[in-house]
């Protein structure tokens, strides 16, 4: 009975000892933090970018663990755990810095790439523009050459004068119409075919006018109307051969703009004429006004 009492009285002491042992073997809060920080460093970018610092953190953590084994909850454990924790943070901070440096390098690389791409695109665009410009220039030169040749070829059938402002094609009235008539002669048509081709080669942006002229025989009124009908006949024929209708007008000048003396037969023959004027200056007046224009 006495022995039982001794056991009973010692039981709380034993329990207290066991509990005390359990409590003191618990790691300090600092050691727990150190463990967590080390694990984070070991499994994060620090393992790649700062392995030497991670190793140091591990060494310090092991020191702290040993201190904990020797004397749980001691100041030494706390102190070593503190150092281990800071070592782990250092490893992670160092790794973050390395990552940021790599990001900067990557950004600089991309910057260069974008610059090069932009420059290439600009050069390509400029090259395309130059090619296009060159093609257009060549096409324009060819068209001008064709137009010049076409006009030159008219010299066989008409009098052609050209300057920067205008081209004047003068056809004799003798080869186009019978006396007093506005009906085109068959021979006139083949000549006007060539004139139409030459006019079309000048481009669709140029305005043209057909001026009809007579000699001084007959009344002014008769001559004006006859010249108008003749100008319209020529214009209609040219339009039928492909000259744009909106591009060409017909004007009857009558006898008022002679180019030769109406007192001689030769002079009168020269005054009976049809002039086709191509405006090179772009839409300005293509001949002296005063007569009725027709479209």
């Amino acid at each position: 009975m006495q022995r039982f009492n001794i056991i009973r009285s010692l039981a709380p002491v034993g329990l207290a000892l066991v509990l005390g042992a359990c409590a003191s073997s618990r790691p300090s809060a600092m050691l727990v933090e150190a463990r967590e920080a080390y694990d984070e460093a070991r499994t994060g970018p620090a393992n790649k970018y700062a392995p030497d610092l991670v190793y140091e953190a591990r060494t310090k953590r092991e020191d702290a663990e040993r201190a904990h084994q020797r004397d749980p909850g001691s100041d030494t454990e706390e102190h070593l755990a503190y150092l281990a924790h800071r070592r782990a943070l250092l490893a992670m901070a160092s790794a973050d810095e390395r990552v940021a440096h790599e990001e900067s390098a990557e950004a600089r690389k991309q910057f260069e790439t974008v610059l090069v791409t932009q420059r290439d695109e600009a050069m390509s665009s400029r090259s395309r523009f130059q090619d296009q410009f060159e093609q257009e220039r060549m096409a324009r030169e060819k068209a001008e050459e064709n137009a010049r040749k076409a006009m030159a070829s008219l010299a066989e059938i008409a009098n052609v004068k050209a300057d920067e402002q205008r081209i004047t094609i003068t056809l004799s009235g003798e080869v186009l119409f019978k006396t007093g008539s506005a009906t085109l002669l068959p021979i006139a048509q083949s000549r006007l075919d060539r004139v139409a081709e030459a006019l079309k080669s000048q481009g669709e942006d140029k305005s043209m006018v057909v001026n009809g002229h007579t000699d001084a025989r007959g009344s002014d009124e008769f001559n004006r109307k006859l010249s108008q009908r003749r100008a319209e006949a020529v214009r209609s024929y040219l339009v039928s051969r492909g000259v744009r209708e909106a591009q060409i007008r017909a004007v009857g000048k009558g006898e008022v703009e002679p180019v030769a003396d109406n007192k001689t037969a030769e002079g009168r023959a020269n005054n009976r004429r049809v002039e086709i004027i191509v405006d090179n200056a772009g839409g300005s007046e293509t001949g002296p006004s005063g007569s009725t224009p027709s479209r």
Partner: protein
Amino acid sequence: MNHLFPSYGLGSGLGVLAFAALLVGCASAPTKQLGESQAAYRAADEVGAGNHPEAAYHLKLAEDQIAAAKELMDGNRREKRMAKRHLQRAELDAELAIAYTRTAGAEERAKAAWHEVNELKKQSGMDDSRVREGMIEGEGQNR
């Protein structure tokens, strides 16, 4: 005197001196560690650790621990040992303050670099990576 140490020679006398020196050494103030911790603190301060919240926190810890160590440095052996520990912690906190400052600077530069890339891309209609800027922002801020 001779009869006090009749059988001790010169070698034994040196041994006593060495033992005394050892005792003095153990109990000396951690002045070397103080110098190292203060140097680390000054370096952290000079790199601008005070301008970044995380770095400033550790800079302050270093400062406080150096101050605490100074209080204990001239005390008994236990206090001197505590002072040394404070100084060791202070040195690491100062190093950490430097590391955080450098990291913050590098992250700011990376962010600025990506911003320039995005601006350039915007100019040429290639704006497709604003996400990268967001990724840089806030990195290293949650320890």
